[in-house]
């Protein structure tokens, strides 16, 4: 009873005061209760893939948005996760419960392997260099077709779980956990250092911070999360193939993140949850599908260069000019210092 009251007070003073937080809470609750109201298998499939790609996009946001290490070869980590889980499952008979974490860890190691040679590169040079890594892995995949399945890929992988609803909860649960952990990371001291490295690496070094360690950390955590999403993807679709490594796969997280708002974590979440289902449901008009999709993205980028999610947040909340506390848009006085808010 007492605990409930604490929870209630927390809800009242920390969550309900800001519309953006309310929105996030409603969104999470809706995701969690959705299968109780709809058993539509297609809808669940779309949402499972959306959740998986959300992790993928958020991992890119951590590396590129926060730490400023623009990667255009992010599919490498996704593919390493997918192939590792697929091979462990089909060759060694490992269950998804072991194969998926191992796939993620292997992708983390590949993050380290990519990070080391890329440490000396910056901005567009780095972006171009990272572009090469998934191509290299594709080459390896095609070089050993007996082992990797070559062009056809690996199929008949064990299903993620017995029923669609269980698969849904695994995907959504993992996604919520991963997003929460990365949010925590980016608002911590480590996140502050990532941000500082993005702005001016030389100054960060001059302040006594070993930027190499932090850049490698960003590569590893990002690789881990991207690999996790890749492994989940392989077990959900029951196949892993070279398309997991192609250019589209590398560019998707970039589009989702920039559309939603980079260096925010909630931005890529918004981006994927709007764009992925949109692209899926646009299959109803196949001949205009890509055209509408591209126009939608162009419009948002043209009108809201900071991304969609930060724009929405700025409509829902305003900052107090005096103490810089955020307030709901309906308030006329600041909730902390009671000073007048400009309309």
């Amino acid at each position, binding site marked *: 009873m007492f605990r409930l009251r604490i929870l209630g007070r927390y809800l009242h003073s920390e969550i309900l005061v800001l519309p953006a937080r309310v929105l996030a809470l409603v969104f999470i609750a809706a995701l969690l209760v959705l299968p109780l109201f709809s058993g539509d298998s297609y809808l669940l499939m779309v949402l499972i893939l959306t959740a998986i790609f959300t992790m993928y996009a958020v991992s890119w946001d951590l590396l590129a948005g926060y730490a400023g290490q623009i990667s255009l070869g992010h599919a490498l980590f996704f593919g390493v996760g997918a192939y590792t889980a697929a091979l462990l499952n089909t060759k060694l008979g490992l269950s998804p419960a072991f194969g998926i974490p191992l796939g993620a860890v292997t992708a983390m190691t590949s993050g380290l392997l990519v990070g080391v040679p890329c*440490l*000396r590169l910056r901005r567009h040079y780095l972006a171009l260099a990272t572009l090469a890594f998934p191509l290299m892995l594709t080459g390896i995949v095609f070089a050993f077709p007996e082992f990797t399945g070559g062009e056809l890929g690996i199929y008949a992988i064990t299903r993620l779980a017995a029923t669609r609803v269980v698969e849904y909860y695994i995907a959504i649960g993992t996604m919520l956990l991963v997003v929460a952990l990365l949010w925590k990371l980016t608002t911590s001291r480590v996140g502050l*250092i990532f*941000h500082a490295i993005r*702005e001016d690496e*030389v*100054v960060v*070094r001059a*302040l006594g911070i070993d930027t190499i360690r932090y850049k490698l950390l960003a590569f590893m955590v990002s690789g881990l999360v991207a690999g996790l999403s890749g492994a989940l993807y392989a077990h959900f679709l029951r196949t892993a193939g070279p398309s997991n490594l192609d250019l589209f796969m590398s560019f998707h997280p970039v589009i989702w993140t920039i559309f939603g708002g980079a260096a925010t974590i909630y931005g890529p979440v918004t981006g994927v949850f709007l764009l992925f289902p949109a692209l899926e449901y646009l299959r109803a008009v196949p001949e205009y599908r890509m055209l509408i999709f591209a126009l939608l993205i162009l419009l948002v980028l043209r009108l809201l260069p900071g991304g969609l999610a930060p724009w929405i947040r700025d409509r829902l909340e305003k900052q107090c000019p005096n103490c*810089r506390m955020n307030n709901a848009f309906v308030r006329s006085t600041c909730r902390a210092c009671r000073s007048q808010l400009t309309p």
Partner: protein
Amino acid sequence: MAEGLRVQGLSVSYGPALIVHEVDLEVGAGATVSVVGPNGAGKTTVLRALSGLVLWEKSSSRQAGVQLVGEVWFGQERVDHLPAHQIASRGLILCPERRRPFREMTVEENLQAGAYLVRSRKVAQQRMAEVCRLFPVLRERGRQRAGTLSGGEQQMLAIGRALMGGPKLLMIDEPSTGLAPLVKQPLFARIREIKTLGIGILLVEQDAELALSMADSGYVLSQGRVVAQGSPAELLADEVVRRSYLGL
């Protein structure tokens, strides 16, 4: 505690261009030393070399043909071969040219980033209070983005950020660049106050009169060489130095 800095025969060249040539320099423990001289004399390069940034450029091959020779001793330790972050952790901290705040971060976050070397949270809070006492405007603007500050405020932030790391010797590069005389004066008054905290200062500055007026000793750098050194009074009284190098 403050420690002394001793530089012997420091030379830096970028490809065929010799930027700093055989510079000898000494800063006693807790002393304030000003390095003055005309544009392009190599003053900034000296500080970049001392703080390990030249070496960083060399190792990261961002610049072709970077050469650095000479010895740098800080306290009892030779530091010229150390990477930049380790030099800073010894207490030899640079406040860089053009201030270079993290523009998108708040003032408070900038200061927190500077406190990386401070392991204890309590000490970090004390430092923060100290820095805000020195520069009250940083507390007022705490939650404002650093990019929105005025030039003078950004310079205070840059110095405050460097102070957060607990320097034994603070190297300040051209703090007066682009500042109006009205802003310069109070800023240098603050730097004088840092002196009284027992922190050594190595100040590189174009405004020779202002920089020398607060120093214990001074060096005049021109075309990469030390062309004169001595007490500020001597340097400012030397007619040749005044006319040829300081433009006074």
